[in-house]
């Protein structure tokens, strides 16, 4: 079963970090070697994938649209749903990326009375997706405090909103919790909706469980199993300045967290997570619906060797006649033609 497989892989990864950094004292490997390796795999892998997509020809002009196309000047057309210019495509892409517009259109289909499908609005997936991605982004940006000195101004601005409830010390940051529960929701959605479960693979469960592991270990480290954050920053700044060092006395929970993060980054280019780059290269989204104004030339086009019917009949005329198959030109006709030509000459 995909779920259990993914679950045990994540548990296994946590155990690897617990044993490696906790028992075997391999903190240099988990704190320095793996993060650097993961970063290289992430960057090279992602760029490689994007370049590969860039090299792939788009044979057909296939924007998916859902609005009136630009045609005659007096027909109003839908600039966002059926963009005709590069600028309109840009706006459409921008809203797609920041607001997940196409997911907003997600529908639920149910069998109504008399076996008629009934479509209902279903915004939960959109809401879960938005909550998940934005809280991930904010948590990610907040982590900049570990990689800038003095901590970036951006971090304190975010923090003043994110921690405004001022609960506890260290104070509760809402997005960390939202991230965990949004990922949990997206995971449970795959488990509990039979249709979604049917099409879910380990590659769908694993990233969600992994991110829940990352958020979970981060939350544990911040609020429950605390570790020396000043030393953590020494380590992370060491990574950023290429003077890596591993201070003594960082709790193993940190190595669990950073190992899961390393796995996430290294796994990124090989998985569905590359939609980070892929969304920008989707021909259904990034092409203008202007095929009536501009001819889209298939870059694959090459002079195809064709065998026309005339040539075919020429080749098999006698056999065709013998088999009683009608031909366009008779043999006599052909002969008279030949004679005429000879006469001309």
């Amino acid at each position, binding site marked *: 079963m995909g779920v259990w497989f993914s679950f045990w892989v994540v548990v296994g990864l946590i155990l690897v970090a617990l044993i490696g950094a906790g028992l075997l004292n391999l903190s240099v490997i988990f704190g320095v070697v793996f993060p650097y390796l993961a970063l290289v795999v992430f*960057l090279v892998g*992602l*760029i490689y994938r*994007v*370049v590969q997509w*860039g*090299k*792939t*020809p*788009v044979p057909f002009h296939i924007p998916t649209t859902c609005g009136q196309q630009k045609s005659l000047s007096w027909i109003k057309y839908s600039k966002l749903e059926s963009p005709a210019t590069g600028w309109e495509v840009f706006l459409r892409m921008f809203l797609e990326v920041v607001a997940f517009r196409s997911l907003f259109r997600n529908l639920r289909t149910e069998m109504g009375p008399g076996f008629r499908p009934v479509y209902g609005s279903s915004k939960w997936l959109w809401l879960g997706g938005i909550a998940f991605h934005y809280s991930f982004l904010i948590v990610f940006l907040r982590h*900049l*405090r570990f*990689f*800038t*000195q*003095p*901590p970036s101004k951006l*971090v*304190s601005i975010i*923090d003043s909103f994110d921690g405004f409830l*001022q609960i*506890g*010390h*260290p104070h509760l940051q809402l997005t960390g919790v939202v991230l965990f529960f949004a990922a949990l929701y997206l995971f449970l959605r795959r488990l509990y909706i039979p249709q979604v479960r049917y099409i879910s693979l380990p590659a769908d469960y694993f990233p969600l469980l992994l991110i829940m592991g990352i958020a979970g270990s981060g939350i544990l480290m911040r609020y429950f199993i*605390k*570790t*020396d*954050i*000043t*030393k953590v*920053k*020494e380590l992370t*700044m*060491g990574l*950023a*300045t*290429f*003077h890596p060092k591993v*201070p003594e*006395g960082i*709790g193993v929970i940190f190595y669990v967290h950073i190992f899961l993060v390393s796995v996430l980054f290294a796994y990124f280019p090989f998985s569905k997570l590359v939609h980070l*780059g892929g969304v*920008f*290269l989707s021909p259904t989204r990034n092409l203008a619906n202007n095929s009536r104004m501009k001819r889209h030339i298939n*870059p694959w086009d090459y002079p195809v060797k064709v065998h026309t019917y005339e040539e075919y009949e020429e080749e098999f005329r006698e056999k065709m006649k013998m088999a009683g198959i009608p031909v366009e030109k008779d043999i006599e006709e052909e002969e008279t033609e030949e004679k005429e030509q000879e006469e001309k000459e």
Partner: protein
Amino acid sequence: MYDGGKIITGIVIFLLFALFPIYSNFGKTYKPPKPDLNTPEIQKMEVKKCVEPKEYMRAEHMKLLVDWRDAALREGKRTYINSRGESYFISLQNTCMRCHSDKKKFCDECHKHAGVSPYCWDCHFAK
């Protein structure tokens, strides 16, 4: 590559974001904070010990402070017995800050690296 110009621009923008920690720190070395323990009160001590062991204090002092506040204000308990069995009077100003009297060189020294600015000083005196 098709649309190479646009794709390469995209990749460059991506790298500008992704590598920000690396180029913004380029050529710098990081000096970890050195909280200053050189205060009159600590100078007077024979064995220089905090309320709890140093490692515990570094990781958990914020939790300890909240526990102290809750103990004092919600349970009315004003003495704290530490792991060594010694008792301390529960007070931010009169206990912590009596020893760590130079807040700027002690608390703030670490906090400006961690990017936290505890709001305790809105009400409490540091000395």
